[in-house]
């Protein structure tokens, strides 16, 4: 356990008050579950509000009854007074407060059961876009089987079209959660779960793994970009283009370093490095063919800037403890060359 805990405790208190004040002002809540942006999320929101209102009604009844009882019947300690009436049962009252909750529960159960059957359709229209989501220990891999595109940690989906996410896991149980676009669904190894939704409002939405999956469970985030129809077409076209092969300069030097460094064992850049045959280990890294096109790095932990990329390559463990990417020991010029090359992979 961290030995410096005692000495720095006071520092945290000072920091708390300062950061608390500034943070409260920030309006944006990217992971807000109450901002539905898809049909699935709106359905959930409607049931959410109904049940919450019924709950608040019951809560108010209990609070009023309790505080009335306390203030009317509490006495100063030891104050003499006549013995209270020893009534201890009243059939009408007991039947009432059994029937009441049952009635409320029926009113809650009807929309719930209807929503349950709507959110898990058995079959979906053919023209729905299938997106295979493969969860690894601490990053997400997305594949578009019908379009042939493949990306990591950032998924692009067209607005106003049925999307059918097929969730598979490559190791342990994860949970694919996009608060704005609908609830979460566990990604269980050995079975393919599914989420089917129609995103309505284009924009960038945050997502995070919700089922505890090991050391870096907190660093397993992803972004969902809901594009307009033509925006999505443009993105797919970019993804299908072959990777940029820099002719000269720092980037080409970086390309050479990339090829003989161990990067090629786990990562794939289409056309340059496939997975080397002799490597049987099950692990694979994200596909880097269009790495520069992504706005975040290391599963949404850092923004995709050259110096962030440099810190990540130099020592992945500080950014994502337990990450399976080894420390390559690249320094100085070689490192900047490799970073330049990777940043050129638009």
């Amino acid at each position: 356990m961290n030995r410096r805990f005692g000495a720095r405790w006071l520092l945290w208190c000072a920091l708390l008050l300062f950061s608390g004040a500034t943070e409260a002002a920030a309006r944006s809540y990217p992971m807000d579950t109450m901002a539905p942006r898809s049909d699935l999320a709106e359905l959930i929101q409607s049931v959410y509000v109904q049940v919450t209102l019924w709950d608040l009604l019951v809560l108010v009844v209990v609070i009023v009854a309790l505080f009335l009882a306390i203030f009317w019947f509490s006495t100063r300690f030891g104050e003499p007074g006549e013995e209270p009436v020893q009534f201890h049962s009243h059939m009408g009252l007991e039947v009432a407060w059994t029937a009441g909750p049952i009635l409320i529960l029926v009113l809650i159960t009807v929309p719930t059961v209807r929503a349950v059957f709507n959110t898990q359709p058995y079959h979906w229209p053919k023209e729905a876009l299938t997106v295979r989501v493969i969860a690894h220990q601490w990053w997400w891999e997305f594949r578009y089987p019908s379009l042939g595109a493949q990306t990591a940690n950032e998924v692009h989906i067209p607005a106003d079209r049925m999307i059918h996410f097929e969730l598979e896991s490559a190791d342990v149980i994860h949970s694919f959660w996009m608060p704005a676009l609908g609830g979460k669904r566990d990604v269980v190894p050995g079975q393919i779960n599914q989420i089917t939704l129609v995103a309505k409002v284009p924009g960038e939405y945050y997502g995070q793994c919700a089922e505890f999956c090991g050391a870096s469970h907190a660093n397993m985030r992803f972004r969902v970009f809901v594009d307009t129809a033509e925006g999505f077409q443009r993105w797919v076209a970019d993804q299908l283009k072959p990777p940029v092969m820099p002719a000269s300069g720092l980037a080409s030097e970086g390309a050479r370093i990339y090829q003989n460094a161990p990067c090629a064992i786990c990562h794939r850049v289409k056309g340059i490095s496939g997975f080397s045959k002799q490597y049987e280990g099950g692990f694979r890294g994200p596909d880097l063919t269009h790495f520069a096109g992504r706005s975040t790095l290391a599963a949404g932990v850092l923004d995709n800037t050259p110096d962030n990329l440099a810190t990540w390559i130099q020592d992945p463990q500080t950014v994502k403890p337990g990450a399976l990417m080894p420390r390559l020991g690249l320094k100085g010029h070689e490192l900047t060359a490799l970073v330049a090359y990777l940043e050129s992979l638009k």
Partner: protein
Amino acid sequence: MAAQPKEIAGQRPSYLAEGGLVGWLTTIDHKRVAVLYGLSSLFFLFVGGFEALLVRTQLAVPNNHLLSADTYNQMFTMHGTTMIFMVIMPLEIGFFANFLIPLMIGARDVAFPRINALSFWVFIFGALFMNAGWLWHALPDAGWFGYANLTERYYSPGMNIDLWDIGLLILGVSTLLSGLNFFVTIVNMRCPGMTFMRMPMFMWAMLVTTVLILLAFPALTVGLIFLFLDRFIGTHFYVAALGATPILWQHLFWIFGHPEVYIMALPAFGIISEILPVFSRKPLFGYAGMAYALVLIAFLSYGVWGHHMFSTGMGPVADATFSITSMLIAVPTGIKIFSWIATVWGGKLRMTTAMYFALAFILEFTIGGLSGVMHASPPIDLQQTDSYFIVAHFHYVLFGGMMFAILGAFFYWWPKITGRLLDEKLGRWQFWLTVIGFNGTFFPMHFLGVLGMPRRIYTYPAGMGWTFWNSFETACAYLLGVAFLIFLVNLVRSLRSEQAVGDDPWDARTLEWSVGSPPPAHNFDDIVTVRGRDAFWLMKYGSHDAPGHDSSAGARASAAHAEAGHAHVHLPAPSWYPLLFAAGLLVMGVGAMTWLRVVFLGAGLLLVSIVGMGFEYATYGQETEESRATFFRGVDSRKMGMWAFLGSECVFFACLISTYMVYKARNLGGPDAAVLDIPLTSFSTFVLLTSSLLMVLALAAIQRGDRKWSAIWLFGTAGFGLVFLGGQVYEFSKLYLVEHLAMQDNLFGQTFYTLVGTHGTHVAIGVVWLFVMAFAALKGKLQQSRSLAVEIAGLYWHFVDIVWIVIFTLVYLMRSIKEA
């Protein structure tokens, strides 16, 4: 009790009087065992609290580096496991229930005093075993629920999960045994006149809790055994590659998990139902309704476990069913809350600290219960599960519910346990600090949950709108820490104070206040007859002309009569064997982590202690006059204990057999059920049936007092048992060597070997038991009066035979049936 409370003049010798260290190590008096439980769980309360403060400090600011990722994971896992298994359950069941059950039902001690001591020592060794991880920075780190295949050896190679797995198995043994013990005590040892409908409500709560314990812990044991085999022998119970599924662990765990949260909730309901009437000077409102609500909660709690798994995709039909049953369970809870308010309504409330905590319980538990109803509906649960909303829900139910009830119970029963009052002024300070700290820490978690902060993340980025609330919560968490320090000061000061308190400071309503406080070692001088609910209140204020009212005016007989009463009471002697049993279990646990032969050493210790306990008392198996007087319609406690144990074994084998049948259809390759040898197992079935026949003939012989034939039949039964075991060993070796059916690479193999192997182990234990019986019969120690011992061994043996009948049909004869 480190600081021995000084003897107060004129106080009759209390249960704390005699016994130095040896007295405490070998005690079997339920009050002293309860004090041991109380001390150890208070210690773990502060350990759990320390872990909670570390977790909160790490989350105070975004991207904090106070704790590394795996240290944080260890802290939140241990906070959960410690608070549930080492604080709330031991405090409610081991400390308060253990101390109060005999006193409230008018009994001298629990049904099985030595098992009571044994379950404490097994608990403390299990808790220390799991916390040993502090020494090697290897505490369990996969969450208190330890979801499967993250806990597989491949994904958590260290010994963290081994400590958690074996530690929980040991704690499970302790809780199961104490559940069995209290169930038989409540059903069988109530004083004359105290029918079920006249028991105090805390007794109803404990009766239902023990039923839940007996029928829930087997499911956890099965899940943990599968995990143990996965990690140590290389089977694949939760690995998808071989056709298995990690969802099986979630099902087995939550079949135990939801009854478990009611095992923690119902004693708290019982405590509140005791405190409110006393400080409102009014009887509990709707006694029958409250008892009915408890029974309904217990029954429904077995049908709701699916609401923990809505997001794993069980399918709409299962989601809808579990959602309906989960909402149904809110109805009995509603009945209880409204009945409590009706109890307080119209009463003359004395606002002592215990009453403050009880009233705060009603409010906080209602908030927790209602936020629970929200994620009982699957669509909402898809947004809320695994977010901080759930953390807020269960902290409102566990801390706001159980901990408030436990703190109220401390202030209410402290004079009964130690003979001193806890200071009201300090209590008031502690109460207000706890309420403010508690609500400040956990109410914002509802906002964090709605704002999408997931659970169990060791850090979070800035700019997500979570930072302010997290910092605010951490500050309030330290406030809670201060409140608990005040509580500790209050406890220690009261132990050192001289202030003598009468037997009944609160003018209470139930029997435990009719004996001295602290009560004498033998509890009641003479057995009380009860004439209605709130027995002590009737003794004090009931009309004295009612028929059958005993002559002595008040409940307490005169001192002289007390001395005479004291003499004829026979208290069982202290014994070393419970400590030996627990040590044996601990050695087996350590052996599993180190070398196999240490496990056999531990098993030897276990066997010695069991046989020792068996023959420690001359009257083993005899029904003494004292024990017969209070039995429930003449039923012996030991027989009822065995039947309750067989009941929990039913659920144990049900989980094993369902796993076998579920996995039978999912076998991917290699040998399957077709390789099973029917002629051999048919012969084994005949052997086992004949051994059952010999068993009952032995019993008939013992009851006739025919020593020669009873020895012969007993040896015959044990012999046939051995033949059955031989058949099984031969069958397993043939399957392994000839058919190459191995546990490691074949799903059918592992489920088959585990199911039939566990049954084989039960047969082996039965054979050892029968040989011990046979030798005892040979040496003349089993007279006719001790026929009950043979009858109980017979019950166990016939149960093992019944399970084989089910296994023989489902596994062997139905081998050709593909899909289950």
